[in-house]
């Protein structure tokens, strides 16, 4: 039986004065996994490596048996072919496109008008994430919670095989974080897409994940059930 996520990634990041070596290996059998570590431990780099956005990564990444990266066998899919959805810490919604255009980005290449199937998918997501009133809005006019919903919907639009969340709640104040954590838990339960969630907050792990992997100074230290 294929693991939900099976990875071993090695890479070295260079910045002036220091270099950071990542050597992370773990296998997860649960649908929702948390990757926890202090800031600077390399957890975001793991996400980038899985998504195909980090340069010069060696090793392998397999999602439900499908290899996105397998250096030994010469496989290294470019990011656009990996079918991985990524939600950034500050959501990275395209500021010059409306909510609807953001959602459509993963479905229609070069801004072409959505066909019937694509439009149906967009409408379904708008419904599912309660974005009806915001279709034509620009991201800068949205609240934090609204942006989170749009970011999730956008990442899920092209039906990815794996969803990556990079510290989805860190940028929020405590009150908002509690509320949105509950919302996020509910949304993840609904969408049923294998998810890897990166966080430094143990409360997130409890509410959102089924198993947890701990990372420290670029190396995985502990793996356990949430």
């Amino acid at each position, binding site marked *: 039986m294929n693991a939900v996520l099976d990875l071993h990634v090695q890479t070295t990041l260079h910045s002036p004065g220091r270099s950071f070596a990542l050597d992370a290996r773990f296998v997860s059998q649960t649908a929702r996994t948390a990757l926890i570590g202090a800031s600077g431990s390399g957890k975001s780099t793991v996400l*980038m490596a899985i*998504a*195909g*956005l980090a340069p010069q990564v060696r090793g392998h990444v397999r999602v439900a048996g499908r290899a996105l990266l397998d250096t030994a066998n010469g496989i290294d899919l*470019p*990011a*656009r*072919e*990996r079918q*991985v*959805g*990524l939600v*950034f810490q*500050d959501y*990275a919604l*395209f*500021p*010059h496109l409306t909510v609807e255009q953001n959602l459509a*980005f*993963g479905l229609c*290449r*070069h*801004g072409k008008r959505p066909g019937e199937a694509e439009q149906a998918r967009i409408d379904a997501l708008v419904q599912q994430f309660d974005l009806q009133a915001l279709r034509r809005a620009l991201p800068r006019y949205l609240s934090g919670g609204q942006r989170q919903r749009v970011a999730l919907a*956008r*990442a899920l*639009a*092209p039906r990815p095989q794996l969803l990556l969340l990079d510290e989805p709640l860190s940028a929020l104040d405590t009150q908002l974080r509690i509320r949105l954590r509950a919302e996020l838990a509910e949304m993840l339960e609904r969408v049923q897409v294998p998810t890897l969630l990166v966080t430094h907050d143990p409360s997130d792990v409890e509410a959102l994940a089924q198993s947890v992997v701990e990372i420290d100074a670029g190396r995985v230290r502990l793996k356990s059930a949430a």
Partner: protein
Amino acid sequence: MLAPLWLTLKIALLATLLAGAVGIALGWWMAQRRFAGKNFVDALLMLPMVLPPTVLGYYLIVVIGRNGVLGQYLDRWFGINLMFTWQGAVIAASLVSLPLIYKAARAAFEDVDRRFLHAARTLGAGEAEIFLRIALPLAVRGIAAGLMLAFARAMGEFGATLMIAGNLPGKTQTLSIAIYDAVQAGNDAQALWLTLVISVVCVVVLVVSGRMLQARH
């Protein structure tokens, strides 16, 4: 009376478009890549801004003059001779404008948050789409300011243009050259009139581009 003005505007516009296409492409390429010798390439691209115009003019003659490195083939195979033509003037003006556009474009692209580009990649966009739909629209203000400065610079180009295109009234006599010509001939009234015309145009261009840069921040 105003023939030099229309000629100057035509040459400056075409030069800005040519340098714009090349400068924006290079700015994007350099903003993305990290490689050994990057600083050297950057210095090379800024060179036309720093070299004396006569040096640039000489290099251009060496390349596109009738017996030049490229010019001899243009002449032999196509019967094309760029010396003393307004097309040659466009090339000279593009060369001096290129660094201005390249610098502005590169800075504008580097200002675009990497995460937008990453997000676009995970959503299936290829590099061309990322450039056209994400990077370019978000960098457009900075690039536009660069284009305006380049236009003003192209309008004022004198040294290299004079060496390549010569001073042919109606054909290659741009405003700057016409002013020089008027001074040489002792025609002060004409020189003053032309100077005022070009000054007004340049001030307008600078004011507009300044506003665009300000609005960005």
